[in-house]
């Protein structure tokens, strides 16, 4: 797809059957078939038509019409790999990937947006570190990428660190105060919803998934006390929603009560554990889905 040697160095794509040249703001040229562009974006279609109408048939290299775009050559190059039937090429940095998404969003390329998001998800699973999440959140707000902003905010809210200005000192200049205020508002809301939903889950006897379990001490809603405490702790620290944390809580309980014949937690049926975890997962993820971000 890269321009062959016979073309100028600023020719980044030379697709067979091209009938249009796109030119970036840094003067990189892309020979592409118009049909791919107009099918991927109504906005681009209008731009192409408008350029042709305004200037008659402007001609560049190889006598093809030229459409000037405000994006950089590297972003356009990457964007076109998601439009043309070639191997997609994601930018190498988070900043550039976010910029690519914002350009796809600007041109209202719904399918391309999904394609780019899929590629990003493959390369960068959502388990990115908190620092990355802040950077992604900040960039998403800057570029108006609502979905990415929400995902990043969810990641940040699940992280053990408190959302206090003091704990964010090294991140304060990553984003505007307005974005930070939105993030704090989201964090507070999602924590409140999570606490409320988990309280309801506890009072419902963990949605009835723990019926018949024998233990030494139960909560008022007939959940073993240690499990009730574990569920409640997730409301204050969502990072405790984790299989390892669950096993840790069980291990601590068994260390104290394991030899007590009234406690049968050590032989808790695997199906009971599975049912409980699924019910908890539904509550946990449902709480995050209930809150949106501006």
């Amino acid at each position: 797809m890269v321009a062959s040697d016979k073309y100028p160095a600023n020719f980044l794509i030379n697709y067979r059957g091209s009938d249009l040249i796109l030119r970036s703001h840094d003067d990189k040229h892309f020979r592409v078939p118009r049909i791919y562009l107009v099918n991927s974006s109504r906005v681009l279609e209008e731009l192409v038509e408008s350029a042709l109408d305004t200037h008659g048939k402007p001609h560049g290299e190889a006598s093809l019409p030229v459409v000037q775009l405000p994006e950089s050559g590297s972003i356009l190059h990457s964007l076109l790999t998601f439009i043309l039937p070639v191997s997609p090429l994601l930018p190498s940095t988070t900043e550039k990937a976010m910029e690519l998404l914002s350009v796809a969003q600007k041109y209202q390329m719904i399918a391309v947006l999904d394609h780019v998001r899929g590629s990003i998800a493959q390369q960068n699973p959502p388990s990115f570190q908190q620092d990355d999440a802040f950077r992604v959140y900040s960039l998403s707000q800057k570029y108006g990428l609502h979905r990415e902003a929400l995902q990043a905010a969810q990641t940040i809210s699940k992280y053990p660190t408190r959302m206090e200005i003091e704990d964010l000192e090294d991140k304060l200049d990553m984003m505007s105060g307005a974005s930070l205020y939105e993030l704090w508002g989201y964090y507070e809301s999602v924590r409140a919803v999570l606490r409320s939903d988990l309280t309801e889950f506890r009072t419902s006897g963990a949605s009835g998934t723990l019926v018949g379990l024998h233990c030494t001490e139960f909560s008022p809603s007939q959940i073993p006390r240690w499990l009730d405490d574990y569920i409640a702790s997730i409301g204050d620290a969502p990072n405790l929603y984790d299989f390892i944390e669950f096993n840790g809580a069980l291990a601590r309980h068994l260390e104290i009560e394991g030899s007590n014949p009234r406690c049968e937690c050590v032989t808790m049926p695997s199906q009971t554990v599975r049912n409980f975890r699924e019910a908890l997962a539904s509550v946990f993820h449902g709480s995050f889905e209930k809150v949106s971000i501006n």
Partner: protein
Amino acid sequence: MDELITRLMVFQAEPGLSLVKREDSQTQVNSITSLPEPLDVIDANLIIRSSDLVNFRVHKAVLAMSSPFFKDLLSLPQPPDSETIDGLPVVQLSEDAELLGSLVSMLYPVRQVPPNTYDKVLCLLAACQKYDMVPVKSSIRAEVDRGSFPGPVETEAFGAYAIASSKGLIPEKRNAARLTLDHPMTFETIGEGLRLFEGWALRELARFRKRRRDNVVACLESFLDVQTPGPSSILVGCPINMTIYPSLGALPNWLEEVLSRKKDDLKLHLFTHPLTTPSSIREDYLMAVQAHADCYFCSRVHTRKGSTFCAELEGRLAQARDKARTSSL
């Protein structure tokens, strides 16, 4: 016309400022506003129009005298296609009518129209800065100092800091930063005011507070140190301490507790905790020494030198809070 446009492009701080062309005048203009009574001028020779389309009749000479910016602007020939009202040329400004009303009232010997909030005072100062109105800016600052114009109240200091930072109002920024020291720097305290901050300004404020906290901690440590001769040496010798640590010269427990508690509170937080105020530490000192009134030694030292000691403690704390070790603020 070209020359005027070029000058405007050089001078204008915001795109809203321009001489109004005739074709622009189709826009609905709210009203023609004159200066406040009794100076309703009949010999005005210029109209300045606010962003919300309110016209103010003024004198070119008055504007030119207060502002080199307007002096230059008005010295240019009037473009032939510019709008006039009653034969007066119209200059479009980017400030709203409320702000322009205050600004114009400060140019004439009439009753001033003070802004009703400190945020608006800052916007007025920013406009003066933009139009290079140095004397007017000084007058506004004097009015704030006198209390005729509103100043920042309590936690409004955070928002004031954000606005002053973004508008490059250095004295207001310094003052607001100092005022924030009395309040916790948290999401809850700053609230909606956080929206006014650029990220860099928030971080700069955090660094400022951290430096001041370090100053205050160092000050408290100097009062806790009795190994080297210092202000607290006069209180070494409390017999209650001597029974516990007979070989060591140490501060009386009651004073050490007062100072250590303050210091430890501050050390617990990097920059979000409010800084100890000089007056609060005097109160704590007096309460502690009264609770220790049974000790003849401490009571005697307090009676003779307590007032001087407190004054020195307050003075040094105030100095530590205000000590500027950076050029950034």
